[in-house]
């Protein structure tokens, strides 16, 4: 058996090499089909990575909830304790300033900057890609000046980041500690994250802690909408509740501690949309894969057709093999393997073609669009394996019928031809 198998494979390779025209003819359909399959898998992989990066940077790591409490809070620290008690692993305030401030760099004033008040822990909830500097740390809470992290577009416009001021009624010096890569993920063209700290309290919440409540710096009087980003365990049932009722109910049981009476004032929804994107990509990939499979099926028929014709034409050659001692199994393997070799050659051609297209597309994309870090156009290993695997499978399927025909043919009749 091993002898017969090896002999069949050796004869198949020799036959494919000797019949180049037949090999090329058989390849065409498979090249298109396998190429389509490789492109579908590659596009799916790219889409998946892009969506994940987009989602993790813009909406949070899996199972990130956006919690909004409407109304005046009496004890913000109690709310934050309860957010943890309700299942929050990491939480960060997520607050637009009550009055949008402006930035000033020398004589230049920027009035269209999007600000967002956050805590250092937002770096654990989202994927932050820093081009320069760093994300906020706990030490920044002690800063006497408001601390910012800005996006690259804004940083480029600001120029010297050590001479920046922020304000609405009056100007305050700020510290810019980091610059985030500008991507399609930025929430506005000019984006600035502002650390929630005593120094930025007035900017974010519109009142000075000194004037309102010296006992508890987190008591806020003027802010009626309080937003948080909370990351919970992805296996928590609250993570799979589309309307956020489970988490809201958990908070509502103790909401009296922070001055909210009704569960209707608590809004919770999941911000990350990895699941939805996965579903869309899966359906899209299935549709495209279906088209690729149909194309591959057409290619299979091509190889099958050429295989059947050549088996009929090669009756004398196959009979000669038998006369020289080839067993039926050897002949079967030889004919099937020829189809497999042809299909694999086609698969390799398709792979090379796809690689060329994807590389060219990658070069063009890099010049036109700034992709998130870690996301690039390329052919993943899974696409190579699926492409070549399906090529081999198609060859196998297309080779079986001609091989059976070859075995049925009479050796004596073949030698007479």
């Amino acid at each position, binding site marked *: 058996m091993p002898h017969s198998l090896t002999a069949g494979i050796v004869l198949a390779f020799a036959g494919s090499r000797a019949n180049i025209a037949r090999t090329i003819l058989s390849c065409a359909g498979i090249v298109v089909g396998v190429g389509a399959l490789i492109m579908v898998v590659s596009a799916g992989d790219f889409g998946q990575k892009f969506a994940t990066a987009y989602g993790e940077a813009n909406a949070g790591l899996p199972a990130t909830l956006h919690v909004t409490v409407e109304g005046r809070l009496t004890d913000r620290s109690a709310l934050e304790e309860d957010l943890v008690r309700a299942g929050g692993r990491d939480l960060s305030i997520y607050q637009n300033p009550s009055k949008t401030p402006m930035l000033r760099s020398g004589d230049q004033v920027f009035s269209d900057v999007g600000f967002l008040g956050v805590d250092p822990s937002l770096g654990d909830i989202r994927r932050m890609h820093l081009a320069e500097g760093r994300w906020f740390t706990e030490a920044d809470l002690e800063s006497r000046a408001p601390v910012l992290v800005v996006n690259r577009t804004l940083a480029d416009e600001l120029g010297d980041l050590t001479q920046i001021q922020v304000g609405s009624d009056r100007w305050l010096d700020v510290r810019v500690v980091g610059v985030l890569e500008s991507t399609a993920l930025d929430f506005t063209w000019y984006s600035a994250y502002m650390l929630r700290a005593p120094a930025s309290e007035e900017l974010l919440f519109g009142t000075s802690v000194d004037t309102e409540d010296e006992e508890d710096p987190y008591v806020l009087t003027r802010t009626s909408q309080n937003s948080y980003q909370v990351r919970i365990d992805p296996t928590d049932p609250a993570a799979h509740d589309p309307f956020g009722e489970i988490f809201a109910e958990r908070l509502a049981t103790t909401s009296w501690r922070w001055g909210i009476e009704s569960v209707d004032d608590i809004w919770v929804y999941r911000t990350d949309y990895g699941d939805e994107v996965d579903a869309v990509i899966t359906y899209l990939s299935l549709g495209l894969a279906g088209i690729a499979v149909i194309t591959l099926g057409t290619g299979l028929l091509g190889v099958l057709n050429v295989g059947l014709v050549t088996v009929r034409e090669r009756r004398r050659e196959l009979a*000669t093999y038998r006369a020289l*001692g080839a067993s039926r199994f*050897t002949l079967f393997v030889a004919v099937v393997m020829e189809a497999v070799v042809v299909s694999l050659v086609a698969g390799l051609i398709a792979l090379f073609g796809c690689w060329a297209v994807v590389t060219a597309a990658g070069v063009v994309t890099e010049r036109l669009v700034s992709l998130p870090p870690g996301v690039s156009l390329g052919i993943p290993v899974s696409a190579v394996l699926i492409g070549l695997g399906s090529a081999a499978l198609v060859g196998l399927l297309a080779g079986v019928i001609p091989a059976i025909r070859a075995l049925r043919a009479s050796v004596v009749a073949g030698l007479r031809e």
Partner: protein
Amino acid sequence: MPVDVETPWSGASRPDSAPLLRVEGVTRHFTVSGRRIDVLRDCTFQVERGEIVAVVGQSGSGKSTLLNVLGLLDRPSGGSYVFDGVDTTRLGEGRRSRLRGEGIGFVFQQFHLLERRTALANVGVPLVLGGVPLLRRRARARELLEAMGLGHRLHSRPHQLSGGEQQRVALARALSRDPALILADEPTGALDAASSTMIMEQLLEQARSRDAAVVVVTHDPQVAGRADRVVELVEGRTR
């Protein structure tokens, strides 16, 4: 340098006392459009090791059918055929293929070389089927082709060779696994007189040097005249 090729007798002496093949009462009939045609009616003969036997007879007498039976390409309808001590009528297809590959070499009238393969590759085919590794296979094929005077044609393809050269390649192929029996079906039928003489001389010389028996089917009295013995087939019966 001669290259050793494994044969059924490697490592053991051949059973010299028994005939190489014995055919007893072999019949072969075909059914065409519901009509039975008896091609071989009663064939009985034997061939000793190293013996040269010519099978002669008129067209349609069953010579080629007999050769197909002897070459294990066809099964007799009746009778027995013992090759090298093995009753082949009871063997399965796999064993018959193996016995054919190891013990029998074929030389066909139309050469039956693989068109797109070199002379070297053609001679190597039986060795591929015998599981001989690549380097030994090439060395063996080269040695045989050089012995046939084709050392300068190793990489030529069949269409680049003359009829005589093609038949010499086919002869080298038949000898590649050092078979005990060489079956030649009209080996000179497609050749001119000079090439025919050369091929027959090489066939007989190579067979004798290897102690291989030869059964040659021929119409040519000159070819038959060089055999040790002649078996005549008349209407499917041996005489």
